[in-house]
């Protein structure tokens, strides 16, 4: 397994580099090779869970051993948390590609679409695997630049404007992250995440550590679209082609924002109460403001985009409560529970929001309309799309048989156990708000009398409906993760990898 780690980056990159050359002669090449690559990577990440559940694998690029205990080259690290992220990324990417086979036929320059998607996945895999700060920045830029181009894929007025906004804010975020990395190098003279953590623990009382943390919160918060920094998300996610919206909302904001925040704050800095409080506050703000703004939306994809902001808030609440409990030295089990809730919700949101954007794409594909006022009565015309949309909405808003219910429940229980009653109350309240706007969405889409313009509508092609059905089934099946045995196998390694008694540092300096 150890020697297979670089394949997560090599395979999508090789597919991306080959496609422009080969696609001139073989038209089917781009889709088939991307599907093949993602399927292989999903199998590889499942292999990790079967064989190495609790161990941390280390890969030294270039074969450079540490000198005097100081790592001198780039190390790739694969532990439970990275493996979970890799599984989500490649799984969603597989179904987005499958979905795109029919969807993207409306656009010109199809091969470029698959190339950019492959590059984005390669960038995200690189971010997740990286054990080096600057390397992380480089691969974050790969993913971001590919996503800037994908948002503008339709080259109409709105797409270009959204992409410009996204690029400017994303550019500021990248530069602030680079400033943070520069400050880290100034203080510690090293870039390896684990080596930095050993030195910076000594400075934990000093203001410089706090300043670096603020820079990283601003930078990665911009990438993750937490609330004061969310201005770009609704435009970018609603203007992109629908499979790309699924990738952006489902995976990119998590791999490029939330994942890095969690990784850095748990494994690199020593946790302080102030920072934990800041993250929880940002999470609560995102949850409230995203949810409230979503109520007023009449555009299918914009509503989903605002809902993404709200759900990212839930994930950061789980993470923030875990940090607060660890910082105050309270019961570690509660922290583990909160983190479990956050990560569980991350999985659910990736699948559910990916599915919902796909249904939005299907509705747009079949009718050409995104305005909720003009839609209606689709349940008879498009039964698969409407049932998938129903499943996704209910999973995100947290109704019992669906998986979203359990993850939100775990977060709320953890908040109550940690005595943060206000947070628990707000989380439960926002769950009702979420339910209300999704119910309104369902009503407008499917039950209201159909308007005259959409009478000739047919169900979407097989590739699109298959991905939707599969993800819809996953929305229910994922609730099995609450069963202790499955939970031990999939999410607990990720939670354990984040705690300070994990073997993340130990393996590197051997």
């Amino acid at each position, binding site marked *: 397994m150890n020697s297979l780690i*670089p394949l997560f980056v090599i395979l999508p990159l*090789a597919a991306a580099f*080959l496609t*422009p050359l080969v696609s001139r002669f073989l038209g089917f090449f781009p889709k088939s090779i991307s599907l093949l690559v993602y399927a292989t990577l999903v199998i590889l990440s499942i292999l990790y869970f079967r064989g190495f559940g609790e161990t941390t694998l280390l890969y030294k690029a270039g074969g450079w051993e540490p000198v005097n205990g100081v790592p001198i080259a780039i190390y790739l690290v694969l532990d439970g948390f990275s493996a979970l992220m890799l599984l989500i990324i490649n799984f969603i990417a597989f179904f987005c590609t499958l979905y795109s086979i029919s969807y993207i036929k409306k656009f010109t320059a199809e091969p470029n679409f698959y190339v950019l998607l492959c590059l984005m996945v390669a960038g995200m895999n690189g971010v997740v695997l990286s054990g080096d700060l600057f390397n992380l920045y480089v691969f974050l830029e790969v993913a971001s630049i590919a996503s800037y181009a994908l948002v503008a894929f339709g080259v109409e007025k709105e797409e270009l404007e959204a992409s410009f906004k996204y690029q400017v804010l994303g550019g500021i975020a990248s530069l602030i992250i680079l400033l943070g990395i520069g400050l880290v190098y100034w203080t510690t003279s090293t870039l390896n995440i684990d080596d930095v953590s050993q030195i910076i623990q000594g400075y934990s009382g000093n203001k410089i550590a706090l300043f670096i943390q603020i820079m990283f919160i601003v930078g990665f918060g911009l990438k993750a679209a937490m609330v004061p920094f969310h201005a770009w998300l609704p435009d970018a996610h609603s203007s992109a082609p629908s499979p790309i919206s699924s990738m952006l909302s489902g995976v990119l904001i998590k791999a490029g924002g939330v994942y890095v925040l969690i990784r850095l704050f748990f494994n690199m800095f020593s946790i302080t109460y102030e920072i934990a409080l800041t993250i929880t506050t940002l999470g609560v703000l995102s949850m409230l403001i995203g949810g409230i703004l979503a109520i007023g939306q009449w555009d299918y994809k914009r509503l989903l985009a605002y809902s993404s902001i709200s759900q990212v808030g839930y994930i950061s609440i789980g993470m923030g409560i875990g940090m607060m409990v660890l910082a105050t030295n309270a019961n570690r089990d509660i922290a583990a529970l909160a983190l479990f809730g956050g990560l569980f919700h991350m999985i659910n949101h990736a699948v559910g929001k990916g599915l919902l954007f796909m249904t939005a794409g299907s509705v747009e594909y079949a009718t050409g309309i995104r305005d909720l006022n003009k839609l209606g009565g689709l349940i008879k015309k498009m039964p698969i799309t409407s049932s998938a949309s129903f499943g996704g909405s209910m999973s995100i808003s947290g109704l019992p048989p669906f998986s979203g219910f359990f993850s939100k429940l775990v977060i709320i229980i953890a908040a109550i156990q940690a005595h943060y009653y206000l947070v628990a109350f707000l989380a439960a309240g926002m769950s009702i708000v979420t339910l209300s706007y999704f119910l309104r969405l369902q009503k407008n889409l499917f039950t209201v009398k159909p308007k005259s313009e959409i009478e000739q509508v047919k169900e979407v092609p097989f590739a699109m409906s298959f991905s939707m059905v599969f993800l819809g089934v996953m929305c229910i099946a994922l609730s099995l993760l609450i069963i202790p045995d499955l939970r031990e196998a999939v999410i607990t390694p990720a939670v354990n990898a984040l705690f300070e008694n994990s073997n993340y540092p130990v393996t590197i300096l051997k």
Partner: protein
Amino acid sequence: MTIIVKTVTKIIVGVTFLYGIYIISHGHLTPGGGFAGGAIIAGAFILLVLAFGSDVLKLKAREEGSSTFESLAILGFLLLSIIGLFIGAKVFFYNYLPKGTVGELISAGVIPLYNIVVGIEVAAALITIFLALVIYKEEES
């Protein structure tokens, strides 16, 4: 452009090209390397386009050619790094060729090869970006 500009360009372009190749091939000995050399070669080409006007050269074909070159070069880079997986220490980015004596032209293992590949890649990328912006203007107006 005037005849003076064209004549001077004809002389300078060759020299610039040679300088770019020199910078690339001596990247492991003197300052510079693949990035600088590639950008210099691209600069020479851009000078050519600016001096002789964009309509003389068949830009559309050239753009496709340069993007093909780019894909080939970047595949070469990936291949060079993947070969490390099979030779010697069997790790990604392993420097598997003999190192030679420090300071000689043929030394440093794979580094000169990386320099050449990156040089082609950067030159092709910059030329493609420039041509894409130029051609775009022609077709719109």
